[in-house]
């Protein structure tokens, strides 16, 4: 039993740390989950973790930047579970470089993955959800709300997505489809440095410097835990949030209270 019993949710990027947390928290509150992603082994691991706890899930290897792939995901979701109530557009990636080193290719890659994937997912959700409507969540970042000099291209892509959400909320209203942003701060599962962070920040030392900087900027003085963001998604997808649309749901340890 849980507040999402009887509901069906798609979670993209379900092979990664945050996507797995979304999928597991939604399942913990009773939703059946369709996870998508590119890494089959990690995606299937998400599914087995959900099933171990008595939940239901499947994993569909998918490239969210392709319209045809979204059609396939929607068809498989309806075939398997008969309905669709939530879509969490979590798949995304960043490139951190000073502006002078960023290329047009970098920008276009970020726009394609972060904006286009979520645009297609939001559109497909509206076409697939039934008369009761549903909930779309786009995962943006603090740099969508305030500039970040280390990630100008990423800020542009997530900023575009963030504003798309507001317009999509108005577009979805006649169909009872709510669209919201979840805005996480920096998250590491259980406070460990994940390999992705080590890669992006040029090694363990670089990653630790990054972590120390983030903690210094975070009022709650700690890195976030992915399940915290998952709980925000559960609230937004539940009937308790039936009047919540077009907002930024912030899970960032207090950073947006002053500035990102």
């Amino acid at each position, binding site marked *: *039993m*849980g*507040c999402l019993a009887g509901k069906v949710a798609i979670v993209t990027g379900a092979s990664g740390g945050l996507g797995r947390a979304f999928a597991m*928290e939604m399942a*913990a*509150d009773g939703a059946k989950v369709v996870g998508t992603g590119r890494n089959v082994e990690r995606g299937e691991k998400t599914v087995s973790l959900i099933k171990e706890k008595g939940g239901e899930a499947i994993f569909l290897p998918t490239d969210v930047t392709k319209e045809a792939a979204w059609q396939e995901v929607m068809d498989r979701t309806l075939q398997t579970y008969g309905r669709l109530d939530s879509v969490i557009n979590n798949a995304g990636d960043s490139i951190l470089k000073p502006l002078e080193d960023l290329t047009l290719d970098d920008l276009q890659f970020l726009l394609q993955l972060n904006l286009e994937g979520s645009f297609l997912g939001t559109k497909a959700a509206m076409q697939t959800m039934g008369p009761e409507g549903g909930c779309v969540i786009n995962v943006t970042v603090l740099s969508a709300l305030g500039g970040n000099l280390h990630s100008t291209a990423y800020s542009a892509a997530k900023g575009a997505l963030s504003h798309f959400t*507001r*317009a999509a*909320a*108005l577009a979805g*209203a*006649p*169909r*009872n489809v*709510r669209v919201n942003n979840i805005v996480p*701060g920096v998250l590491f599962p259980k406070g460990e440095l994940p390999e992705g962070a080590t890669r992006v920040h040029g090694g363990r030392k670089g990653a630790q410097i990054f972590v120390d900087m983030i903690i210094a900027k975070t*009022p*709650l*003085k700690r890195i*976030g*835990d992915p*399940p*915290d*963001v998952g*709980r*925000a998604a*559960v*609230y937004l997808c*539940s009937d*308790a*949030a*039936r*009047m*919540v*649309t*077009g*907002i930024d*749901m*912030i*899970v*960032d*340890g*207090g950073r*947006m*209270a*002053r500035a990102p």
Partner: protein
Amino acid sequence: MADTNVEGSGRRVADKIAIVTGAASPVGKACAELFADEGATVIATDHKPGDARIAQHDASSEKDWQRVIAETLAAHGRIDILVQTAQEFFLMPFLEMSLEDLRGVCRSNVESAWLGIKHTIPAMRKTGGGAIVNVSSVLGNVALADAAAYCSAASGVRIMTKSAALECAAAEDNIYVNSVQAGAVEWALRAGSAGGAAAAKGSPLLGHPAVEPADVAAAALFLATPDSKYTTGMDLIIDGGHAAG
């Protein structure tokens, strides 16, 4: 933490001591009832109780706050949650307002929230932390004609919430301070002016013409449980999408 946070489990704020102000009005009443349903001991207060189960409390009076806090600590030993819904909705065209009107609105809305924060934090610090939820209005995010005083007040509560959150975080006192910015709740209908009619005309969401007190209560509950333990200084807008458009 997730296993105790199943909605409807009756346990989401089990064994917590919660003060809910404005409990004689629809939003406060919904908060008091929901928190009690989810296991909290609720100290419901209002300046016009009208019910033996609600304690007399003028939220704009510092003396009344001191009394309510002292009585709660004497009876229960702790305060874990404060939900502030006490407020006064006020609409009047700018040029018809007097300075006294403005001051009255600030007293009922800003001073009350400020007093609640000021007098509750010390109690919460003694027992390891807590959650403060200030129920404000989306008119603190976007403006409305005929509502300059109320918009100022709602905006003040919204940003005061963030300041308080930052101070608590810096003090590492485990106190979370957030606000709910509610839109077009039924009490707006009572104001009867052109601005009130505009506020109440409904949201873009089909089938849900207005924000219900229960929607606001559910948001307050989310912000008062460990489900939101990485969220502080946030204003959670519940308005059917008005502020988005």
